């Protein structure tokens, strides 16, 4: 079972490395969207500090969604998805591996970039640490929930727009608790409650989402 997870993850990472433009584009999207806000809103530090959690989280959410349409579409087009569906292992496990690979490629870089961008908003050290922690817990949930949407819209024409309409409302709890954790730190309350809830969402997203995703993929393959 672990061998299968490793095989799928290493294949997806290798593919991502051969197509670095995709990763770089999503990262630059994140950097630019976040950097536009201080320019547009003005350099008032108190105001920026208030805006920071929401802006960083919304930008991270959109950036991690950019690569979702391709999560299964490439495998679907070249026939690899059929082979994966016929592998002598539950399809849910393969989806889990693909979700983990998606997070490593599209989620983890956001976590690492966020504190650098947070400085633009005059966030303190403790708030930056909590921002990283909240993204570290929240982005896996985004990948997991996003996989369901990607599978449901597989093969649909104009699926990209439909995917965002489907997935963004489901991201709301992650956004609320993620931005809330940073907010709570800035305003002096502890972030523990928010982070615990985010952790629960991440566990739910990563370990339950693969099964409905697998069911949706089987329907798409019929």
């Amino acid at each position, binding site marked *: 079972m672990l*061998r*299968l997870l490793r*095989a*799928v993850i*290493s*294949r997806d990472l*290798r*593919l991502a490395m*051969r*197509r670095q433009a995709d990763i770089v584009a999503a990262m630059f999207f994140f950097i630019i969207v976040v950097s536009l806000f201080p320019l547009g809103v003005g350099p008032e530090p108190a105001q920026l500090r208030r805006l920071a959690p929401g802006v960083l989280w919304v930008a991270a959410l959109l950036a991690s969604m950019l690569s979702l349409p391709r999560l299964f579409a490439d495998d679907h*087009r*070249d*026939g*690899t998805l*059929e*082979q*994966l*569906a*016929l*592998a*002598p*292992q*539950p399809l849910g496990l*393969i989806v889990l591996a693909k979700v983990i690979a998606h997070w490593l490629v599209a989620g983890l870089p956001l976590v690492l970039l966020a504190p650098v961008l947070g400085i633009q908003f005059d966030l303190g050290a403790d708030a930056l640490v909590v921002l990283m922690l909240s993204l570290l817990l929240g982005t896996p949930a985004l990948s997991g929930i996003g996989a369901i949407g990607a599978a449901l819209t597989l093969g649909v024409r104009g699926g990209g727009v439909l995917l965002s309409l489907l997935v963004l409302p489901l991201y709301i709890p992650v956004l609320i608790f993620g931005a809330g954790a940073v907010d709570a730190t800035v305003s002096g309350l502890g972030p523990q409650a928010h982070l615990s809830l985010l952790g629960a969402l991440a566990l739910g997203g990563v370990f339950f989402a693969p099964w409905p995703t697998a069911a949706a993929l089987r329907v798409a*393959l*019929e």
Partner: protein
Amino acid sequence: MLEASNLECVRGERRLFAGVSFRLEGGEMLYLQGQNGSGKTSLLRMLCGLTPAVSGEIRWRGEAIGKLGEEFRSELCYLGHQNAIKEELTPLENLLSAARMAQESLDEDAALDALDRVGLSGRADLACRYLSQGQKRRAALARLVHEKRALWILDEPYVALDPAAGKFVASLVGAHLQRGGLALLTTHQAVAIPAGTVRELSLGADAAAHRRS
């Protein structure tokens, strides 16, 4: 070993075929014929378990394939219309990752040998996007060289291949039948299979299976 009874397939509003039945034992091959759009690919996908049958039943070693699930899939090797080849990866990487994901043990030497035998020696380290259509097909068919699973389902294996490569694939299928394996294939280019019993099944005109040795 593989038994299909009264299969029916409906695509959209159209019924493609109904009442398709056959039995296939070890060492036998079923050669599916029919015009374009007669449902050959649909039948093969049904036999893999990718598409559910509208009615009828498919049994493997006496049990319904839906019930067997992973047990059936571990004995099945399916090669579809699409090559399942990643353009960014080299033929060697494609072959190795396909084997790993299908939980088969294939070491690098065996993989290189397989690529050698399908005529891709010297291309093993070139990204597949630089290969021609026929070479991509060969890279996909390299999976069959060391394939030991009992049931092979091949959809148009000869497409884009030159006659020599077609003969080589036929010899692989022949060797597989001699080992006691089963094979189902569709093709519009008849290539003689060197060994085993070949049955034929025509879809569309009349769905009666008849035997030819």
